[in-house]
């Protein structure tokens, strides 16, 4: 039983790889245009913002919390960018202010959750509403067309690799180093496993939580920038429901919803690629656009079910055998 269970668990852990290959194979068979280098490069570019958001979300999920406001943070950041760009402010100043806006929202979340002890779901639901409202007010619910320089920025390549991919990968690598190589990362896992215990061994859990939500805001800001350099305009629906795809991406990649377990590399990246592949594939197949949310929610649901199954299996496997059974060996 255990050998089989171990194998199954490995499959579940590495499931995202298999699922990704499967999805790619199916779409390529259905429409060979999917499997071309051009489309796959395109897919990576499209995935870069999701990778960034899922990275931020992984931090939050590791603490056992959730950040529902990242889509709204994206909209506010984008609105600020649009306003400033139209007003002719210089690019570096704009980028700085946009990221500050995003981190500012993270600070609000962090303050509510870490200092005032509001539960993350409620706190970030509130900032979601605030952010959406603020974004719509800033844009007057009209689309803002950005100067051409932003689209040019998004299509640049460095050493043949598109800039959005580079940004996403660099951020993901930094995030993974932060998680696995620094005290903060270990504190994150400890806090996510059980906050009271973490506090008792002297981990500054409030500071850890605060930083986590700031990071989530920062990644939402970077994600918004990357997204905008591909869209070229700010629409009132910008960032809508991106929190859900990010959560799904993180969970598909093996991050636990109950905290304490998960990775950015490969986890969040794989999850983001998988979700983006499905959307990309459906577009190539000329599927009814109304099907997209349906497909996305099916993916999210299966991700959550997968997480539950995995958690139960890990608990089962960690039960040590009491004696060796020669008959079944």
């Amino acid at each position, binding site marked *: 039983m255990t050998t089989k269970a171990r194998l199954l668990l490995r499959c579940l852990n590495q499931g995202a790889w298999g699922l990704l290959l499967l999805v790619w194979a199916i779409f390529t068979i259905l429409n060979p245009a999917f499997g071309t280098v051009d489309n796959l490069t395109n897919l990576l570019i499209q995935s870069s913002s999701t990778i960034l958001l899922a990275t931020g979300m992984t931090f939050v999920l590791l603490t056992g919390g959730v950040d529902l406001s990242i889509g709204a943070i994206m909209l506010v950041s984008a609105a600020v960018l649009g306003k400033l760009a139209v007003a002719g402010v210089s690019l570096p100043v704009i980028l700085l202010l946009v990221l500050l806006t995003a981190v500012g929202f993270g600070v609000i979340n962090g303050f509510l959750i870490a200092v005032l002890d509001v539960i993350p779901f409620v706190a970030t639901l509130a900032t979601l509403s605030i952010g959406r409202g603020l974004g719509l007010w800033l844009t007057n619910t009209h689309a803002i067309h950005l100067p051409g320089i932003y689209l040019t920025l998004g299509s640049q390549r460095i050493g043949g690799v598109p800039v959005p991919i580079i940004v996403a990968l660099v951020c993901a690598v930094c995030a993974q180093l932060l998680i696995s190589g620094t005290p903060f990362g270990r504190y994150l896992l*400890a806090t996510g496993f059980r906050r009271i*215990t973490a506090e008792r061994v002297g981990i500054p859990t409030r500071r850890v939580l605060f930083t986590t939500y700031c990071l989530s805001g920062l990644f939402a800001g970077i994600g918004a920038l990357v997204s905008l350099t591909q869209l070229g305009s700010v629409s009132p629906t910008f960032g809508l429901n991106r929190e859900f795809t990010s959560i799904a991406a993180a969970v598909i990649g093996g991050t636990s919803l109950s905290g304490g377990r998960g990775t950015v590399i490969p986890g969040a990246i794989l999850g983001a690629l998988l979700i983006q592949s499905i959307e990309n594939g459906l577009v190539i197949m000329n599927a009814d656009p109304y099907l997209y949310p349906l497909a996305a929610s099916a993916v999210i649901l299966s991700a959550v079910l997968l997480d539950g199954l995995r958690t139960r299996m890990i608990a089962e496997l960690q039960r040590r055998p*009491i*004696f060796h*059974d020669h008959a079944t060996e």
Partner: protein
Amino acid sequence: MTPGLTIRGLEKSFHTIPVLKSLDLDVAPGEILGLVGENGAGKSTLMNILGGHLHADAGAIMLDGEPYRPDSARAALRCGLGLVHQELELFPNLSVAENLLIAGFPTFAGCIRRRQVEQTAARLLQQVGLECSPRTLLGHLSAGQQQLVEFARVLATDFRILLLDEPTTSLSRRETDTLYATIHALAQAGKGIILISHQINDVLTHCDRISILRDGRLVHQGPTQEIDVEMVIQKMTGRTVTQLFPQRDRSKGAHVGRVLLDVQSISQPRTLSSISFQIHSGEIVGLFGLVGAGRSELARVLLGLDRCKEGRVLLEGQPVTGSPRRRIQQGLGLVTESRRADGILAEMSVSENLSLVALPRFCRPVTGSIRQPELDRVVSITRQQLSLQSRLNDQQPMVTLSGGNQQKIVVGKWLINDPKVLILDEPSRGIDVGAKADLYQLVQRFADQGRGVLAISSDLEELIGICDRILVMSLGHLTGEFQADEFQRELIAKAAFAMQLSEPSHRSRK
């Protein structure tokens, strides 16, 4: 300046109930002080104040002549006070090395120096005699090994005073000896040590002085040479517990009625190997074994918490199957091993906890609403049988109760449901002598009503004291059965090692 820890006039109340009353305590460097007392005597509160989790209402604490009043665990550690908690404060999702050094990772440019962490960890593990790789995930260790990790962790810090709260509850005898050797070495190196333990023999053997707490007051303080176990118990409880175990007629057949529970060759891969036994009405059957012998696993299978591959269980001739809920309705009950994790609902009140198991019996048909007056009546009757502390209020949350009272209520909630067979897994773990005596009375009265009891325990004295018959398990096998007239410690202990002796390669093969 007095070196070491000095406590003067410490006071603390909860819900207007005083828990510590004008407490004075001293620990000098190089000294091992044993602190004993019943559950609820105030030991944990003192511990929490010293550890920075609580503030005292009045009084002063001095550490090496400096006022000591920490706001957090971190601050306590900074001041030089190390704590080893009874409840493990470890993270199964981190490695052993990371758990050991979590309070202060060595870093270089913001990154953890992994090699240094592992080297330090290996040294600490060696110090406490634990053989495992620092890279092992903590969740893969056994309970005893984890307790040693908890102890090793404090050794990494720079403490002057060390507080140990029940550091040996999950340890084997050998591990316990290693632990005490380390403690003596620390005292030699000039550390002041406070040891809180219910193992009075260990305290008398290993401590220089003993302080006895009762109801938040210090009732005795003096060298351990001048006192013996009986006197300690008498001072702890304020009465002479001459009769820890209730009187019982153990002549053969005195309690054996018809067969109640018939367990027929239950097997579970790698856990239980063809276990068969019977429990008769009126009988208290003990189940002895080492930690990890599969006794709790057997209890879980009997109650349906885990599925079993083979075998069947009959209760009064009827097969017991299905969910735990159904088995409870059929007349089984289980007091689980870990009170805090799955025995109580800590935030809910005494009466709510008492009514939990029997709740379905007090529901009106169709609407499912609770017949509250009837339930209240039964709860209050049971509550009186439990000999709880008199100042205890029914609406008090469980978390404010001492371990002994909590355990009585856990047993009480099953008694309300009037099961035919009650399984007790380590029923007296972490509770004081007085509460133990009450609990044994309770169990015996229950059995005398023609019910059956299966008492799982690692404390052989306890089983010999209360049981009519003792079964022994070793590595998932039933390896012994002893009638009351055959209770011999050596033979029973030998049976508990039976499978290890017959299969020496077991450990190395895993």
